């Protein structure tokens, strides 16, 4: 008679069949779908290709006619500048321009200052509010002006190709020492970093969310069984250990189902052509995402889950009333949050000493190790050691939690202190 199976089946079914569970999953699915579609939606709403949306900029010729003309030429060479220039060759009065801004003929105008010693004047963009320029547009205009400056300084001694070549910024790549010619798969260009960064970030959030959710489900389930007094019948029917691990396994399966469900939704959404394009245009190269990271992440999640779940069960067994539960599980959720934030803040510096340490500490290692595997450099032996430490801790904390659980489920009344718990554990001979 497989009692563990019976407990697992009952605990799992009674959760999955609940309406509230279904509704939660549907809501999460919708939120996740929207999040994945955000890049596409941004594109739709900002409407980059829309000609009418392009900013109209008045160009004054009065002080620096040569620069103005060169700037105009340089701007015309840009395919998608995002702005159109309107000549004000004749009208040099700023009052006229002011009027045109007020009448919405132009959005603003560029004014060139007096020539300085270095050779290039200050440029001012004057608009209605004084801060109308979008960041990206400002950058475009700035680089166009840079181009103009080069042309003027070169004074026609350089060809257009040479000038174009000068405008391309220098790329600085990073590579690990000793892997120079192996064609290492870790290509630390900005694009792959961004993809991996987002990827690891999503995985961490997913694992944290599911771990917290299933963990507190275990705790509240145990407490409600205690407060509804069905616990007395359960512990006389089946050994507390079977009961505790049955519940932990049931919630584990539930968590896996949620992960599979969310993965399907994300993959399905990302695979849609419009999203693919939008994400690529954001500079995220999806081909950089490796399945290995996901699989390692899953393994770390599984181990992390069992480590935390046993503690959640132990805490749940000590609390007699559901109202007290939130406060009681606080230390564990805090631990989860710490491990999450350490991982997140270390994402910018995935090889720093802090995350190296935390990737070996059992409660923080699941997330820290994932960050290191995903975006840092990590040796195979480090992964092996971290996993081994994690496994040993699971066995230890599982054993400890089982002892606490066996005692805790029999203790009613106020939450016992550590000393009372120790005394009770000795008295019950567990």
């Amino acid at each position: 008679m497989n009692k563990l199976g019976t407990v697992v089946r009952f605990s799992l079914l009674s959760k999955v069949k609940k309406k509230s569970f279904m509704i939660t999953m549907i809501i999460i699915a919708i939120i996740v779908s929207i999040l994945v579609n955000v890049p596409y939606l941004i594109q739709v709403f900002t409407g980059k290709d829309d000609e009418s949306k392009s900013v109209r900029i008045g160009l004054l010729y009065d002080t620096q006619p040569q620069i103005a003309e060169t700037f105009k030429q340089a701007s015309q060479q840009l395919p998608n500048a995002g702005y159109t220039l309107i000549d004000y060759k004749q009208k040099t009065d700023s009052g006229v321009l002011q009027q045109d801004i007020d009448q919405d003929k132009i959005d603003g105008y560029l004014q060139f200052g007096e020539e300085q010693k270095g050779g290039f004047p200050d440029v001012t963009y004057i608009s209605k509010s004084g801060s109308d320029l979008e960041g990206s547009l400002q950058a475009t205009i700035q680089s166009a002006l840079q181009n103009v400056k080069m042309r003027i300084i070169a004074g026609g001694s350089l060809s257009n190709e040479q000038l174009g070549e000068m405008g391309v910024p220098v790329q600085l790549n990073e590579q690990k020492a000793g892997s120079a010619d192996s064609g290492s798969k870790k290509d630390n260009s900005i694009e792959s970093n961004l993809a991996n960064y987002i990827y690891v970030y999503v995985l961490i959030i997913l694992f944290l969310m599911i771990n917290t959710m299933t963990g507190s489900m275990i705790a509240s389930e145990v407490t409600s069984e205690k407060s509804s007094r069905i616990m007395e019948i359960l512990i006389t029917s089946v050994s507390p250990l079977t009961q505790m691990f049955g519940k932990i396994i049931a919630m584990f399966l539930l968590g896996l189902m949620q992960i599979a469900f969310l993965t399907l939704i994300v993959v399905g959404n990302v695979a849609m052509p419009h999203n693919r394009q939008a994400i690529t245009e954001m500079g995220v190269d999806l081909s950089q995402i490796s399945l290995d990271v996901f699989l390692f992440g899953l393994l770390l999640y599984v181990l992390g889950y069992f480590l935390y779940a046993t503690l959640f069960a132990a805490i749940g067994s000590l609390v007699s009333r559901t109202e007290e539960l939130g406060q009681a599980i606080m230390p564990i959720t805090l631990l989860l949050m710490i491990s999450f934030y350490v991982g997140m803040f270390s994402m910018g510096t995935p090889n720093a000493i802090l995350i190296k340490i935390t990737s070996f500490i059992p409660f923080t290692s699941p997330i820290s190790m994932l960050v290191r595997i995903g975006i840092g450099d990590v040796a195979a032996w480090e992964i092996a050691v971290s996993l081994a430490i994690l496994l040993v801790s699971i066995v230890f904390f599982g054993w400890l939690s089982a002892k606490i659980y066996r005692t805790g489920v029999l203790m009613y009344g106020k939450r016992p202190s550590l000393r009372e718990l120790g005394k009770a554990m000795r008295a019950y001979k567990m």
Partner: protein
Amino acid sequence: MDEGTSARTIEMEEGNLVMAKPLILNRVLKQFGDKTAVNGISLEVEEGEIYGLLGANGAGKTTTMRMVLGVIFPDGGDISYFGKPYGPDQRHEMGYLPEERGLYPKVKVSEQIIYLAQLRGMSAREADQSLRFWLDRFEVPEYYDKRIEELSKGNQQKMGFIAAVVHKPKILILDEAFSGLDPVNVELLKANVKQLRDEGTSILFSTHRMEHVEELCRNITILHKSNSVIQGDLREIKKRYPREEVFLGTTSPVAGLEEIAGVTGVERKERGYLIRISDVADAKHILAAAMEQSEVEHFEIKEPTLNQIFIKEVGESNE
């Protein structure tokens, strides 16, 4: 040699001819820290017997029951079930109805009771049949698909009772089984408990309600401050206590009862007098005095009630 081993020996010597008793507690001891919760209690429950376990709050009843149920282990002595020590098989043979019977409020009756029966080693099909049988017996087959929170308190308790007996236990443990029930439901549950007894179930029964014990139990143990103070056949116990009350029913008032030798108190009742005496032998003087003055309708030397015995034993040593 302790009784647990002797029961096993009998079984071994005479094969299956002599069945070991369903439940034997032999000098069972339990301490919590330096506090003794149960101090060497021994008792035996026969097949088809309801055994009463009495005691004030905190006397050690629940601890004793928990040890019988195998939830906590005794520090000394032993408990045997049909001659065997506690183990997973023994768990299947036991049913338990706790004082504050609990079921999952939001789960269907059928789902949770079949689950509980499965945990006690029944197959899902057997459990389903057994559950339907019991629902029919309580005349509430429509509760099969209801959630516990939808039922009234009395009906929830019926479901709790079904949960305790659905797997056909040979040993049933009832802790304050009838507390908080209305008289109709008490009678209904009592009838079912008797029926189970007649079918051969051994029942360990704890309660505060002495009249239930007098009605149901053959043997009892009264616990007081972790010790067993009175134990044995209920009728024998009663005989051991002096009869100190006389009820006298007469057609007309009787005067001077207080003056009769040996009378310690007279209480006027609606239909007669309740007279306390120090010695049973003095009862005949009362009868003689009464017959002189009036016609006697009713004369009874009353047995002490269990309630009186309980209060006497537990109350006196309470100081």
